C-alpha cells in the first residue's frame, strides 16, 4: 500500500471500502419465467443465460479518497456500486465497509409524490438510514441548498424534474455521510447547480470524506478524483492515475464499438475474421467488393443441431442484413471440437459508413444461446461518391434527347 500524495493532502491508509474477489452474475431470462405455471412447465429447461457482470474484482477504497469508476456500458460500474451499498450481494467474494454510507443511485428514489418536499426530506433521510435527530440541525441547510424556497411545502408531484433532482441531491449530500456513492447523477441538473454540487464534493473531499463516483464522462473523473478505476467487461482494466487513465480510456472508446457477448459457451466462437477478396483481414471495404466472414468455433462438448448466424447493423443499431444456417435450410447434425464456417458475401451493396457485426451460435429454436457476440466487430464502407443514401442499386440513366 502506497500513500499517495494528492495536491497538498494525503489520503490515508485506512480502508473505507474493501472488496475482495468480487464476482457477480445475473441470469438473463429468455422470457420472464415469473409465474408458477411457466416454472412448472419449463422446470427442466434452463431458460436463462448467465451473464457475468463482474469477475474477480479486488478494490480497496481508502478513507478520504475520491475514486472514479469509468467504463463503457455494461462494464459493471453500477453493479459494483450497488454492491458497495449492499443492494446486491455478490456470488463470490467479500465486501466490507466502514462508516455511514449515502448512495445517490437515483436522485429522489423513494420520494412520495403526495407528500410535500419537507415531508419527503424526513422520509428520504430515514430510508438512507439517518435519524430524525441527526436531521434537525441540517434541515434548513438542505432546503437552502435545494433552492426550492417556498416550494418545499408543496407536494413533490408538482415539482419539475430539476426541482426533484435538486432536492434529492441536497438531501444525500447534506446528510454528511462518511462515504458518498454517486452514480451518474452529476449529468442532470442545470450547469449552475452542477457547479454547486462539484463545489460540495470538493468540500467533502477537504473534510476527508470518502467518495466513489461512477461516471460516463471520464473528464469529470479526471478533474475530481484521486484515483480512477477503469472497468471493462466486469474486470479491472486499469487502476491509478486519473489523467493518464482517462486519456487512454478516451482513445480506446474511439476505437471500440459498443458491444457485448453472452451465452452458455457450449460452443465458443473463438475468433471472427473479416476477410477481403485476397483473403486478408481488413476493416475497410469498397462498395461492391466481396466479404468473407469467417467464424472459428470450438464446441467443448458435442452439440446437436446448432445454428450459426450473423447480422450487420448500421450505426443507428438497425439490422441491415442477417441470416443463419436454419433460415438457409442448412442442417448441421452435430458439432464437436474446433471448426470453421464462412459466410461469403459476393458483393457489399452498402455505401459509406461503419457497420457492426454480430455473430451467434444458438440452438434450433433460438431459445438457448451458446455464444452471442453482439456488435463486437465492425467494418467501414467506402463508396466512390457517385451515389447517395444507404445502398447501391443498379441504376442506369437514359438521357432522352
Amino acid at each position, binding site marked *: 500500500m502506497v500513500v499517495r500524495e494528492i495536491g497538498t493532502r494525503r489520503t490515508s491508509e485506512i480502508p473505507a471500502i474493501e472488496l475482495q474477489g468480487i464476482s457477480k452474475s445475473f441470469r438473463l431470462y429468455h422470457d420472464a419465467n415469473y409465474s408458477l405455471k411457466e416454472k412448472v412447465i419449463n422446470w427442466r429447461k434452463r431458460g436463462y443465460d448467465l451473464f457475468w457482470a463482474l469477475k474477480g474484482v479486488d478494490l480497496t477504497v481508502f478513507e478520504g479518497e475520491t475514486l472514479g469508476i469509468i467504463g463503457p456500458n455494461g462494464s459493471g460500474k453500477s453493479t459494483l456500486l450497488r454492491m458497495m451499498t*449492499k443492494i446486491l450481494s455478490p456470488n463470490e467474494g467479500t465486501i466490507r465497509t466502514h462508516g455511514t454510507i449515502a448512495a445517490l443511485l437515483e436522485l429522489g428514489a423513494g420520494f412520495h409524490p403526495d407528500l410535500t418536499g419537507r415531508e419527503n426530506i424526513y422520509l428520504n433521510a430515514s430510508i438512507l*438510514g439517518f435519524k430524525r435527530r441527526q436531521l434537525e440541525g441540517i434541515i434548513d441547510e438542505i432546503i437552502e441548498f435545494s433552492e426550492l424556497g417556498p416550494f418545499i411545502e408543496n407536494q413533490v408531484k408538482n415539482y419539475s424534474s430539476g426541482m426533484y433532482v435538486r432536492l434529492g441531491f441536497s438531501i444525500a449530500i447534506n446528510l454528511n455521510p462518511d462515504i458518498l456513492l454517486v452514480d451518474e447523477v452529476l449529468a442532470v441538473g442545470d450547469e449552475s447547480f452542477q457547479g454547486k454540487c462539484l463545489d460540495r464534493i470538493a468540500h467533502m473531499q477537504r473534510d476527508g470524506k470518502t467518495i466513489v463516483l461512477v461516471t460516463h464522462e471520464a473528464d469529470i473523473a479526471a478533474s475530481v478524483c484521486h484515483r480512477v478505476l477503469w472497468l471493462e467487461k466486469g474486470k479491472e482494466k486499469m487502476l491509478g492515475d486519473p489523467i493518464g487513465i482517462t486519456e487512454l480510456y478516451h482513445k480506446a472508446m474511439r476505437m471500440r464499438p459498443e458491444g457485448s457477448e453472452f451465452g452458455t459457451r457450449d460452443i465458443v466462437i473463438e475468433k471472427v475474421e473479416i476477410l477481403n477478396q485476397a483473403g486478408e483481414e481488413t476493416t475497410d471495404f469498397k462498395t461492391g467488393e466481396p466479404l468473407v466472414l469467417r467464424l472459428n468455433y470450438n464446441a467443448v462438448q458435442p452439440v446437436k443441431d446448432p445454428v450459426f448466424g450473423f447480422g450487420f447493423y448500421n450505426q443507428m443499431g438497425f439490422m441491415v442484413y442477417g441470416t443463419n444456417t436454419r433460415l438457409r435450410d442448412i442442417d448441421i447434425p452435430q458439432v464437436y471440437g474446433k471448426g470453421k464456417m464462412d459466410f461469403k458475401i459476393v458483393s457489399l451493396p452498402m455505401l459509406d459508413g461503419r457497420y457492426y457485426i454480430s455473430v451467434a451460435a444458438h440452438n434450433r429454436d433460438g431459445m438457448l444461446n451458446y455464444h452471442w457476440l453482439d456488435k463486437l466487430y465492425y467494418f467501414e464502407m467506402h463508396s466512390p461518391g457517385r451515389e447517395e443514401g444507404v445502398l447501391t442499386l443498379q441504376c442506369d440513366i437514359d438521357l432522352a434527347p
Partner: protein
Amino acid sequence: MKEKLKRLFDYRELLFNLTHKEVKVKYKNSFLGFIWSLVTPLMMLVVFYVAFGIIFKLRAMGMQYYAFYLMSGILPWNFMSTSLLLSTGSVVSNADLVKKVYFPREVLPLSHLGSSSFHFILQELMLIIFLVAFRVPLTPWILLFPLIMVFELTFIAGLSMFLSALNVFYRDVQHFIEIVLMAWFWMTPVIYPISLMRDSLPSWAVHLYMLNPMAHIILLWQRIMYNSPHNGPDAALLSVPGLLGTIALSVCLVIFGYITFGRLEGKFAEFI
C-alpha cells in the same frame, strides 16, 4: 439473526416514517381525511343494522344487536386481510426503492401492518363508542385489548413477511392470497355465530374447524368486545390449550417468516 434484528432496530425510525406515510397518503387530498376511518365503521353498522335488524328481522330469532356481534368480528378480520393483502405486494410495489436504496427490506411489509393497526385501533374505538351509545354493557375483558392486538399482529407479521418475500419470485402469490382469504373468511366465525358450527357439525369436524388460528383470534375479539348471548354460555369454543397452541403457532410463524425473508432478501433487487 441477532445482527439483523439490531439492524431492524436501527431503522425503526424508517418503519415509523413509512407507516406514517401510508396513513397520511391514504387520506391525502380527501376533504374529511382520517375521519373516513371512523365513517367507514359507522356506515358498516348502519348497513348491518338495517339489513339484519330491520329487513331480515333476526331480532325475533334472538339475535339482538347482531350488528355489534358482526362488527366485533369483522373489524379484526378486515385488519388481518387488508394488512396481508397490502404487505404481500409491498416489496414488489416498492421495486424502485428496493433496487436503488439499501435498507432492511422487512420494513416494507411491516409498515403496512403499522398503518393497518392505526386504522384498526380507530375503528375499534368507534365500536366502543357505539356500544356505549347503545347502552350495551362492556365486559371487563376489554382491558385485554392490547394483548390480543399484539397476538394478532404477531400472527399477521409472520405470514406477511413470508408472503411478501415469496411474491417477489412468484407473482401468483398475490392473486392466490385473495382467493384464500375469501375461503378463509367463511371458515372463520365472523358473520355466523360459532354456536352454529358447534351444534351442527360432528365433534371431529369442530376440532378440525378450530385448527384455524383465525377462529381463535376472532373468538377472542368477540369475547372481549361484545359478549353476545348467541355465542353460547360456555364462551364458545375458546380453551386454554387451544389458545396456547395458536400463540405458539403465531410465534413460530413470525420466526419462520423472518428467517425466510432474510434468506431471500439478498435476491430481491435482481428479481424484482
